[in-house]
């Protein structure tokens, strides 16, 4: 088999493999519809009702508005956390002593659910965007800080020695050795953290603001037990979470980032 044939084969294989989850989802939707029609207690709206609810949201222009509101908060919270936590974590990790001093404190803050900060967030920022952004920030800050710290610590000594050997200034060293050496780990961490941010925004919107997908879910229930809208909100949250993850994953495709210490 030539390389081209192999490639063609793997491409058609991957098309089939890619269709597999779609087929699986369609089967589950069909089962869901059947189950709902046989059990009309209204414990769960059927898929068709959910589709209609999404259509209704689109018609009122609410879907786009709420999605944008949620993404806005996630973007700010995540970006602020990344901009602060990554340089700080890299610095702390580089100096062994500062790492030993800071590590226990970070480990105390890390297991506190970002949701536990809700009362304080509202006290400090009032009900509104700032409170939600702050909660997302808290949820993203500690995981990113820890990853940056350990990423620096795990740089093989050889890379650092080569950098020193070629006579680089500190700025050059950071840009040409330190930063590329920690990039793959930071990208993985960002992907996971983005997932956390998306979880937190929904919870934050249920309490701290009156727009966004989290608000939609609470509001649909409070304003008239519209469970079709509740599930529609859930579906939209899931789909956008998937898209965010795909977006973050596409960063990993750059070949200069496609390496890991293990395969070296």
């Amino acid at each position, binding site marked *: 088999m030539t390389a081209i044939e192999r490639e063609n084969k793997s491409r058609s294989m991957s098309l089939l493999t890619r269709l597999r989850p779609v087929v699986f989802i369609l089967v589950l939707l069909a089962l869901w519809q059947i189950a709902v029609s046989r059990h009309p207690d209204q414990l769960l709206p059927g898929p068709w009702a959910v589709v209609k609810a999404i259509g209704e949201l689109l018609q009122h222009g609410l879907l786009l508005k709420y999605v944008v509101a949620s993404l806005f908060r996630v973007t700010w919270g995540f970006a602020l956390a990344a901009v602060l936590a990554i340089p700080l974590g890299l610095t702390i990790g580089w100096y062994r002593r500062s790492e030993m001093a800071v590590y226990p404190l970070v480990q105390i803050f890390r297991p506190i659910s970002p949701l536990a900060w809700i009362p304080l967030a509202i006290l400090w920022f009032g009900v509104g965007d700032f409170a939600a952004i702050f909660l997302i920030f808290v949820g993203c800050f500690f995981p990113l800080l820890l990853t940056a710290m350990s990423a620096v610590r795990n740089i093989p000594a050889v890379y650092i020695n080569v950098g020193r050997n070629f*006579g680089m200034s500190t700025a050059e060293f950071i840009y040409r050795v330190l930063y590329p050496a920690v990039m793959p780990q930071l990208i993985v961490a960002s992907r996971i953290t983005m997932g956390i941010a998306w979880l937190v925004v929904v919870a934050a919107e249920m309490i701290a603001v009156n727009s966004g997908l989290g608000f939609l879910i609470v509001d649909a229930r409070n304003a008239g037990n519209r469970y079709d809208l509740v599930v529609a909100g859930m579906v939209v949250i899931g789909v956008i979470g998937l898209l965010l993850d795909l977006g973050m994953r596409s960063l990993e495709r750059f070949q200069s980032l496609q*390496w890991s210490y293990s395969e*070296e």
Partner: protein
Amino acid sequence: MATETLKPPPGSPGKLRMEHVSMVFDRDGKVTPVLDDINLNVSDGEFVAVVGPSGCGKSTLLNLMGGFLSPTGGSISIDGQTVSGPDPRRILVFQERGVFPWLTVEGNIGFGLSKLSRAEREQRIAHYVQLVRLQGFEHTYPSDLSGGMKQRLQVARALAVNPDILYLDEPFGALDSVTRLIMRGELLRIWQTERRTIIFVTHDVDEAVQLADRVVVLSSRPAKIENILTIDIAHPRNISSPRYLQLRDELLSKIGLAYTV
């Protein structure tokens, strides 16, 4: 680029001088003497191999020469200047992982050339790609290179900054035996065209006798220089000639002694 210093004419003695060098590691209060009273003179353009039992401090010796460590006793000087830290005029080539996985072959060779103009850098890269025979792999990442290619790449990156000394720390130690043989030939060819001073740490007796002008035999830890053997055979060396075998046996017996001391 480092500023050019006045170099003594090729072949003159005393490129690198080690005088009464000793090294003691002190880690968490555990004191380990590693090197003891090392005296060595390397002349410009010379190829010196360092052999010795594993763990005896060969790599420590190279790290001292390269300025990555400071000796706890004695002094090391190059061209009359005391070594005080790593310097792009002397490049250390590592056994593994020495090339940057996030840079292509071109990017790795150009790593130390950022201060050159673009045209000059490209010309330098092209020259060294050719020298280590990596043509056609300029845009390949190290994960797609074989072990031997990675080591050639590391040597090319080192040579590209025009160093006067190359320190090689068991550079072929992680390669299979056939690749290792090929790499020895390549290194000799490069040394003969580029004429740098080379200090080559190895645990392989054949490698030392095939390549070096002189072989320094270290004892077990704390290492002293047990013996220095001059290999008086011209290149290319016939590895089944009587003189070669004689020198090889001599070196082996000296290492044997070194092991028992």
